């Protein structure tokens, strides 16, 4: 594993959806509007932001589940353009979904769910080989091989998420996009699943793009964190740096909302409550998307989108008034 090699790179990714409005017209919903980041091999990048900011869309667009409007995606240095590239990439980049209840086909047994990627990419030649691989995968995620003949609805949420992870691991991927994999689970189960993600990373050398809205979870698992707001990355840097020294006003207010398990500290700590609501992505403010709620907003913010500038080593923020 070389330290400088980027496994997954996204450059100026845009994903606009056409929303029909009126009789013939349509409006552009800018779900993701120019996002760039890169993940090194074996690293975990946490992607945080509030609901509707485009985190999930970023994850899905990388796998070409939505055709990107513009922008480039590189996997292992290779530009993903054609359908063939996408199929090849899907053998290496897998996804774990948010809702373990709807992401498993109710009509299939666990063996068929976990074995599906093996069938699609024709990775197992004989049935015995397939069965053995499925049993191995179930063991890897802490399930029993006797679970293989059951249906998904016979399992609890945590177990279902494990099945989802086993399915993602079936093709021996190098990178897993985790789309809020723990937000639908109980807190106690969340810890188990997150520890499992860490163990798997250590054992299999996986690279994660970890999407979540829970800052503590993201801080725990990530090496670097990117903060998203309305389809833009507003701040990106090493996890501890972002957590301890946030510079962008949005990150500061986001972090001030994290509950602190220390009453003395919490008493003196002032929570920054943002004014107003998130603007609709159908009708984005000009310039910086955050300026309508930003305490530091000036006239310049309305005119031009601030670029990501380096405020500390490896630490970037997009704001005119740092």
């Amino acid at each position, binding site marked *: 594993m070389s330290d400088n090699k980027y496994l997954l790179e996204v450059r100026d990714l845009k994903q606009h959806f056409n929303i029909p409005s009126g009789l013939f017209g349509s409006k552009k919903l800018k779900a993701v509007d120019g996002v760039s980041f890169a993940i090194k091999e074996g690293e975990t990048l946490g992607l945080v932001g509030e609901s509707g900011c485009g985190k999930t869309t970023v994850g899905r667009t990388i796998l070409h589940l939505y055709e990107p409007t513009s922008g480039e995606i590189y996997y292992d240095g290779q530009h993903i353009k054609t359908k063939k590239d996408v199929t090849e990439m*899907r053998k290496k980049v897998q996804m774990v*979904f948010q809702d373990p209840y709807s992401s498993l086909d109710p009509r*299939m047994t666990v063996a068929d769910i976990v074995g599906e990627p093996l069938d699609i990419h024709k990775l197992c030649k004989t049935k015995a080989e397939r069965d053995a691989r499925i049993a191995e995968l179930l063991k890897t995620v802490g399930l029993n091989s006797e679970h293989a*003949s059951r249906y998904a609805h016979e399992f609890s949420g945590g177990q279902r998420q494990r099945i*989802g992870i086993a399915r993602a691991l079936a093709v021996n991927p190098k990178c897993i996009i985790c789309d809020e994999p723990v937000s639908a689970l109980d807190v106690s189960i969340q810890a188990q699943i997150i520890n499992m993600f860490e163990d798997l990373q250590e054992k299999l050398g996986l690279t994660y793009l970890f999407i979540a809205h829970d800052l503590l979870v993201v801080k725990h698992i990530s090496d670097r964190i990117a903060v998203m707001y309305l389809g833009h990355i507003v701040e990106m840097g090493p996890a501890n740096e972002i957590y301890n020294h946030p510079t962008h006003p949005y990150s500061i207010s986001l972090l001030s909302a994290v509950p602190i398990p220390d009453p003395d500290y919490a008493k003196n700590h002032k929570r920054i409550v943002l004014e107003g609501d998130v603007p609709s992505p159908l009708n984005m403010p000009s310039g910086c998307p955050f300026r309508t709620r930003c305490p530091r907003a000036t006239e310049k913010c309305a005119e031009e989108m601030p670029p990501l500038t380096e405020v500390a080593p490896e630490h970037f923020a997009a704001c005119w008034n740092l």
Partner: protein
Amino acid sequence: MKNPDTNSLPKKNPLSFQLDVSKWEKASSAEKEQQIIERESVTFFKDGMRRLWKNKVAVVCAFVLLFIIVAVIVVPMIYPYNYADQLGIAEVGQLPDATYNNLGPMEYSNTEQAKIDAGEDVFPHLLGTDELGRDYFIRVVYGTRISLSVGLFASIIVLIIGTLYGSISGYFGGKVDLIMMRIVDIIYSLPDMLMVILFSVVFKQTLAPAIEGTILEKLGTGMISIFLVFALLYWVSMARLIRGQILTIKQQEYILTAKALGASPARIIRKHLLPNCISVIVISTALQIPNAIFTESFLSFLGLGVSIPMPSLGSLASDALNYIYSDVYRLLVPALTICVIVLSLNLLGDGLRDAFDPKQKK
């Protein structure tokens, strides 16, 4: 009894209510193995059949249908009379025996009575004869055979076309869906009974030379034109139903998951979408069979269905209308047969849906 390991355990306080650990024995690995309750690995089909077997009503209906199917296959082989034979017409040169016509159940004609008197064995007419002196029982059996096969094949045709069309339209959505569904709307808006009659007339004339000498000739143009009418017109409601189901199921996250795994559209439709709307498919197919039986009898009533002398339950019932005051049983027998078949199919369809839909399981 005593396990050496227990020696290392702390001594029990004599006043404590705690169980004395030293009296316990550790489970051997063989005993532990016994505790693992492993359910037999079963396929989806086997699992469904097992649940279907527990549903008494459905099982009874399945047996009733099975009995009817076996009966319509076996009875014509062993029954001494044929559905087309006019028993009164004797050999050339002899006068027909008019007493064969319109016999009541278990009655004999004059010729037969004479034979019995002479000591010969004559098989009784279980349900009498019709106005042309044909044995009515065998005609009902034969009519059931025709009606069942028309129902079965017509609904299979509808099932195949409707499912294919509906799932493609629903899965691809957008412009494909728009165009495909407008075609369905056009067919739907045609007055279907008129179209059925027109098609039957046209097919009856154009098909006759085309199928001459082939195995299809035996089926008769009437039957084939019924199948063609079904294939051309009746799949639309099935296609709409399937499309609606596919549209809802398509939104589920597991379809997105399958796409992320790299599954092709054909695989997604086959492995994920169709199995998840199996209950709708089963129910509407089970309902399509009686629908087809009704349409067939309607066409037979108009003389466009099966060709004479071939009977169907519908044509038998409509012929019996003339004798409703004298011989009610002639109407009741085919009508009851239709009832039993339709009821059994509906209840069996319900049972199948319950059995093959693990989510709806009680």
